[in-house]
């Protein structure tokens, strides 16, 4: 097992004028489950492929443990790409399907069997070992495939959108299984996905990327509670955080006919801005007497929660007026949520960003 570190790792594709990955610095701890997430084209796959040895590193270094692997071929890096191809062989037993590749590494037979058995226990597949794979369900096939990677006992697992080819139901089940397995195995894992919900439910830490640049690395909860810039604020969370722009006025920010109060400390940090963006998560909004005026369009009940889909009203600014605002309130407000209402924001859950730098100003 090992930690992984990218230091100033950069990849510029031939015929491209800007880096696909730009001076990436990322430390992944031993046994950690690190998820790289970001919109399509942000460079997450390229980063993973640099670690795998599939893409050249134009500048910077990559280390696995204390070995500099920057110039090593893939097979000498002691990594395993999971789920690339997981054909199951009909005439071989599940045990052989899991362990056959070890023959190429000259692992003695007794040890092969031992490793297979151990993996099968982890995967709940013990009773299947002597069976042929033909009767296996889709999920069971997935587990055999995982077993194939596990028996190799690599230092690092790499997974690039491993769930993208599964149907929705299997995807959710497999997601849980992978996370649980990783925890039990304790093998350092780097996982790429474009789906922030997947990233947040699986990762010990999540690295958010955009345009080849690392935006923030933090635990899921910290990303959620303290997004470091506007991009992360908008990207993480589902439904997304409401991001409302308004001019700075005395004591706060003007939103429609309402002044949202902000602390003196935050306003002091905004000395270079004339306007700010305030981020409010849907659950930090409640229907109240005082607050941001909105027009409720749709009320949707999901379990114990009620989602209000509404639009901002009362602003003279054309670009702000009509912006969508989502609020998640407890069910008892349901009766009052129609037409125009006011939404009050929990003052302890405000995220304030500079429009000039896009960076977070509030604590």
């Amino acid at each position, binding site marked *: 097992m090992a930690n992984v570190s990218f230091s100033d790792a950069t990849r510029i594709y031939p015929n491209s004028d800007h880096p696909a990955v730009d001076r990436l610095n990322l430390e992944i701890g031993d046994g950690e489950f690190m998820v790289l997430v970001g919109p399509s084209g942000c460079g997450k796959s390229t980063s993973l492929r640099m670690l795998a040895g*599939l893409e050249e590193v134009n500048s910077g270094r990559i280390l696995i443990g204390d070995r500099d692997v920057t110039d090593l071929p893939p097979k000498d890096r002691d990594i395993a790409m999971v789920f690339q*191809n997981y*054909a199951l062989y*009909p005439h*071989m037993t599940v045990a052989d399907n899991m362990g056959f590749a070890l023959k190429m590494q000259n692992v003695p037979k007794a040890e092969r069997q031992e490793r297979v058995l151990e993996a099968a226990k982890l995967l709940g597949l013990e009773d299947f070992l002597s*069976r042929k794979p033909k009767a296996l369900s889709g*999920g069971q096939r997935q587990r055999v495939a995982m077993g194939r990677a596990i028996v190799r006992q690599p230092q690092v697992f790499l997974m690039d959108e491993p769930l993208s080819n599964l149907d929705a139901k299997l995807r959710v089940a497999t997601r849980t*299984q992978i996370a649980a397995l990783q925890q039990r195995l304790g093998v350092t894992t780097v996982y790429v996905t474009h789906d922030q919900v997947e990233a947040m*439910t699986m990762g010990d830490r999540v690295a958010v990327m955009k345009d080849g640049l690392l935006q923030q690395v933090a635990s899921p909860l910290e990303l959620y509670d303290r997004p470091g810039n506007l991009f992360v604020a908008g990207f993480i969370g589902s439904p997304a955080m409401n991001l409302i722009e308004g001019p700075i006025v005395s004591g706060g920010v003007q939103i429609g006919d309402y002044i949202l109060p902000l602390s003196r400390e935050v306003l002091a940090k905004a000395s270079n801005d004339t306007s700010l963006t305030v981020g409010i998560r849907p659950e930090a909004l409640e229907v109240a007497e005082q607050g941001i005026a909105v027009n409720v369009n749709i009320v949707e009940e999901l379990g114990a929660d009620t989602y209000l889909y509404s639009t901002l009203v009362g602003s003279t600014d054309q670009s702000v007026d009509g912006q969508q605002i989502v609020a998640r309130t407890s069910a008892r407000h349901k009766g009052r949520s129609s037409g125009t209402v006011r939404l009050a924001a929990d003052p302890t859950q405000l995220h304030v960003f500079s429009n000039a730098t896009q960076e977070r100003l509030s604590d």
Partner: protein
Amino acid sequence: MPRFISAKPDSRLLPLPWETPLAEWPVNLLVALPRGLSRHVVRFIKVGDDVYAAKEVIDHLAQHEYRLLHALMRQGTPAVEPVGIITERGAVDGVPLDPILITRHLEFSLPYRSLFSPGVRQETVSRLLDAMVVLVARLHLIGFKWGDVSLSNILFRRDADTFAAYLVDAETGELHARLTRGQREHDIDIARTNLLGDFLDLQAGGLLQEKLDPLRLVDMVTSRYRELWNELTGVEEFSGGELDRIENRVRRLNALGFDVAELDIQTDADQETIRIQPMVVDAGHHSRRLMRLTGLDTEENQARRLLNDLDTYRWRTGQAHVDEAVVAHDWLTHSFQPVMNAIPAELRAKREPAQIFHEVLDYRWYQAQRECREVPLLEATHGYVRDVLSDLPDEELNLDVLAPVVEDRQLVNPYDPSMGYVEAGEEPPVDAWENQADDQPEASPFLDLAALRARAAAKARAKAESEARDTP
């Protein structure tokens, strides 16, 4: 209503039951041709005299594979021909059906499951491996990383005494401007694992010639690939006195079936050392030449054989100084066509025309050796039809090639070898994981924050506990 996306639409495909899952199609629309293993539902469908391969696969992969197959076709790389994608196929129980990717069934393709079977000659095996290596190298030359090289993803066709390999599954493929060494190595790594699995599976099913050792076969593939790649792209350095090595290199590449479109030649300041490296090489040296001269579309080694015959013809008919294109036309009308015309129509599905011509030439050579006389081409053709062709199985649509291999065993599903053979008394074991998963509620599309906070708290607790344990 289903939607068709196709560059070359075949209107006979339109009325097929696209709103039915492919696995449930009525068998009168299908042909049970032998084929490789697959994770997806794959069926061969027959419309008129044509056969198509249909694969049910999720949307983005269908699109991706369709586009890549087109790209490969444009580059002239041997791959199955994409025909179209059928999307928006409606739903069963509210679950929408995945799109279907249609490719043209590759005529005269031989299923690998019978090619390595007991009784096969070592030489044949060797040639199959070579064909595979050539295919992978050709793909790498054009910047294609396959990502899933396996016996199931390759189709073989006869090519004179050898084989030609075709790509059949491009789903995991990536097309780059140029492959890095890491990408090629990774492809070979995947190939090694997949091929080992394929050979071990054949062995476990009693379908592999006993003398063949799966590990050795895999090593052969790897080392041959390295040799070929080195010949195709490697740098060669020699002294200024050995200039003929430039031409030798080109000849060697031609002999391997490649044309050199760009050769980089560098000399150092005092002209002592010369350094050459092929920069652009194109496969199909002989087949392109034959195509240019005669319009015949053949495999590389068939072309080589036919071109040799053309040369002999030129010499024998005293046309050494006549323009090559003129002689080629003459050869086509007086040699090739008469042989084809002499093949009874009902036997033509057994071999491709160029392969028949090659086999007739072989037949004639043996007969001439035996009888110590020159045998006229048409006489040899009749002998070949009588002694060889009429006893051969049909290979255009290779129905019974698989038959002797399976003998007393029965495929679980005649349309899908991935399921293996029927075996007695199999009750699936209880699967605690699966039962648990069934009980779980459908996941919400929203982020479950409560679960996230609970997980973070549990982690913090575990950490505190372990720290407490560590500090006595």
